[in-house]
């Protein structure tokens, strides 16, 4: 497989054909419906429209990521994952697809989606590089964790009413390896992309002048949220660490009772009983720690990455507005080329409005997803803790019962002697 180098950050596409591209990727509305309808829908109110359309009984595309495999070439070693798709959508020629993808391909897809929809919230990918200490956090199985995160990423895209209709997404799911490679080579060349980058930087330096109140509120929220979710991530990791150390000590505790039972006669029963109980509690503690690492830690971590995505989305929206504002100013000050400028300004104004609607619409959706994900993760964690304590309680109660029975036996013996 040839290595296509994909930029890890893709700046907004500024071509004039954007409107046409977008309409092709919208929901299955009438061909005649255009931007207007979409905007109206979005501005009606953020909360409920998409929810109806995403009702789970409506789900018509199922994606799984599994089966990591190692590939060794002369140049590099990398892992590919199997991506299975089952769908009834008419845009797909078949109802089932099986392809192999590597992390780079996912990165490419994410970049394309963000390029096409700069103000839609795309679920984050797992980190590119192994951050020091991350391996231990994720139960030592980096590939397993990455695979799960990639699975979640694709499913989020598949569940998204707009993103799932993306042509790039379809190609990603269906194309064979060489087909994907050649598909990737299309699109704006390096030079034009560099030009876009320069423009984007200029825009962000210029800054936006009249940011609507709701987006400022959004930014404040995102900053606060990012802060809190990072804290939760750290706290949870700390808990995992403390639990592991507790487990370590507990593992030394039980054997001492067993050792002691070797010196005793009457106390052998209770001592071995206690040793056994502690051993079983160790197993339960280990399971609890694993659950924490498998469920809560990855979820929190994903939302840490999410909040970075959100910040990027807000930045991109600001840039779009900044570009429009700049052109608008130019329109007011320059005397020449008024018509061309007017056309350009109008186009940019539409673009701003479209970007704002997209974001507002997606914002509610994201919030719902976030609430659902975190709520579910916390409930699972709480339940696991309940299970853990219930199991341990049962272990100790069985021991107590055995001692009570021995106790009453002894007393009976004395009564008779």
């Amino acid at each position, binding site marked *: 497989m040839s290595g296509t180098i994909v930029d890890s950050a893709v700046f907004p596409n500024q071509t004039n054909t954007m409107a046409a591209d977008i309409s092709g990727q919208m929901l299955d509305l009438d061909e005649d419906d255009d931007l207007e309808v979409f905007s109206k829908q979005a501005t009606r109110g953020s909360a409920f429209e998409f929810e109806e359309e995403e009702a789970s009984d409506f789900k018509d595309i199922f994606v799984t990521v599994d089966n990591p495999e190692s590939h060794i070439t002369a140049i590099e070693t990398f892992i590919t994952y199997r991506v299975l798709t089952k769908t009834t959508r008419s845009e797909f020629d078949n109802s089932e697809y099986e392809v192999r993808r590597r992390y780079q391909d996912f990165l490419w897809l994410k970049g394309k989606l963000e390029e096409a929809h700069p103000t839609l919230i795309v679920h984050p990918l797992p980190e590119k590089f192994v951050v020091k200490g991350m391996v231990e956090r994720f139960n030592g199985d980096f590939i397993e964790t990455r695979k799960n995160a990639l699975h979640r990423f694709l499913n989020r895209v598949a569940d998204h009413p707009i993103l799932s209709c993306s042509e790039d997404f379809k190609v990603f799911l269906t194309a064979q390896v060489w087909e994907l490679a050649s598909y990737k080579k299309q699109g704006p060349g390096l030079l034009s992309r560099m030009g876009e980058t320069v423009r984007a930087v200029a825009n962000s330096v210029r800054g936006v002048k009249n940011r609507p109140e709701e987006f400022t509120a959004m930014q404040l929220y995102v900053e606060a949220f990012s802060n809190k979710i990072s*804290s*939760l991530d750290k706290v949870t990791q700390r808990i995992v660490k403390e639990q592991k150390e507790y487990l370590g000590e507990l593992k030394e505790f039980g054997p001492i009772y067993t050792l002691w039972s070797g010196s005793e006669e009457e106390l052998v029963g209770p001592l071995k009983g206690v040793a056994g109980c502690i051993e079983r509690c160790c197993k339960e503690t280990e399971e609890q720690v694993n659950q924490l690492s498998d469920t809560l830690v990855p979820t929190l971590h994903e939302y840490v990455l999410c909040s970075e995505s959100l910040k990027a989305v807000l930045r991109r929206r600001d840039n779009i507005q900044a570009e429009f504002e700049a052109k608008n100013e130019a329109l007011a000050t320059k005397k020449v080329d008024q018509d061309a400028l007017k056309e350009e300004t109008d186009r940019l104004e539409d673009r701003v409005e479209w970007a704002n609607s997209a974001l507002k619409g997606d914002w509610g959706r994201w919030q719902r997803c976030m609430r659902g994900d975190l709520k579910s993760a916390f409930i699972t964690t709480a339940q696991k803790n309940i299970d853990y304590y219930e199991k341990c309680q049962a272990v100790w109660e069985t021991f107590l019962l055995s001692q009570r029975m021995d106790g009453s036996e002894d007393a009976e013996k004395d009564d008779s002697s």
Partner: protein
Amino acid sequence: MRCCDYTIQLIIATNIKNKKLANQFNRSFVALRYTIHYCCTSSIQRMTHQSSTLLRRLEISVAEAEKRTGKNTVNMQETFTVYLIETRPIDAITDGHNPAPDSLWRRYSEFELLRNYLLVTYPFIVVPPLPEKRAEFVWHKLSADNLDPDFVERRRVGLENFLLRVASHSVLSNDKILYHFLTEEHEWKEVVYETGFQAKADSRIKALSATFRVKNPDKRFTEMRHYSDELQSITSQLLRVRARVADRLYGVYKVHGNYGRVFSEWSAIEKEMGDGLQSAGHHMDAYAASVDDILEEEEHYADQLKEYLFYAEALRAVCRKHELIQYELETASSDLVSKKHQREELATGMVRTFSFKGMTNKLFGQEAPEQREARLGLLEEQIVEGEETVKEKTSECQEYVKDAWVDIQRFKEQKDRDLREALVSYAVMQISMCKKGIQVWTNAKECFQKM
């Protein structure tokens, strides 16, 4: 009252929320335990029960602790704690008649003095230990300061336990010095020193640490000594690891408190999730706080283990004393044998064993008959003395073995009972901890579901 019954009592006692009430309950319960439960197990205990120990006649408790300041032996100001010993004759408590107890204050060093006296006076008894002088096996949150109120409280309980054990012992409870300790505040120290036990105390310490080889020790005592070493090693290991486990558990619980803080802050920026998060946060705080009570209860378990760590030392001392007496007997016997040989040599002129005198005789010629007579006479005297000594030592040894073995048996049964109860109470504590955990996380889960 059967073994299983007082486990239930213990469960009740540990679940009483009102601390003062619980302490009162525990005190009377503990005293009850020493008088009644002893009759549950073997015939030895029944005999003990029948011989009226002090505890059957006198109600004893260490009711309070107070700080005092005073000048010490080098005339420097020091702060120390005194403990209130309350006693009340049991027959004075009748229906409707509840007389106030007699009381006096004692400090820890006086308890130590009492114990040292008992150790020396009854070397064949496994003397109950005192609570530790300095806090050891401390997990990091627990204070190692002797003036810390929690330490003082645990010490008060330990001192009471010591007195109850001594006062319910068939032999120790009859001691006059003990009675004086409990009932007369002043001049008790002088009375103790007048017994002259101090001299014996010093020689005891020296003897117990001396190394000597015993040829024919009573195998049972040798085994017991090995056992006491094992018990000491095991309990100290157990206490060390338990402290580390407690430390770690503390860490786990306390970190959850951070959830409380962050949830609360987060709830401020959320609309739908706000309430759920806020209340879940409260439960996380409660969870973090619950570990303090859990570990405080566990300290009681640690104290029970510590008591037997120190008991192991007392047991070891009893076994060593046997070896010492046996050694003295063997030394006296072999001295006697060698003196008898020397007599034979002198009498018959036959050199049986090597002796310096024999050698010098060979080298420098025999001594004069008068000298020989004198020496023979001396030897005869020494042999008579020696035979007396051997007789004394033999009977001392036999009596010691008999008395000590009785007490060792008593100790063994007490230990089996107490440690089993301790293990059961540990299980009870674990169950209680699990129940609290279930409660908190069930509440938290409900809050999450409302998110």
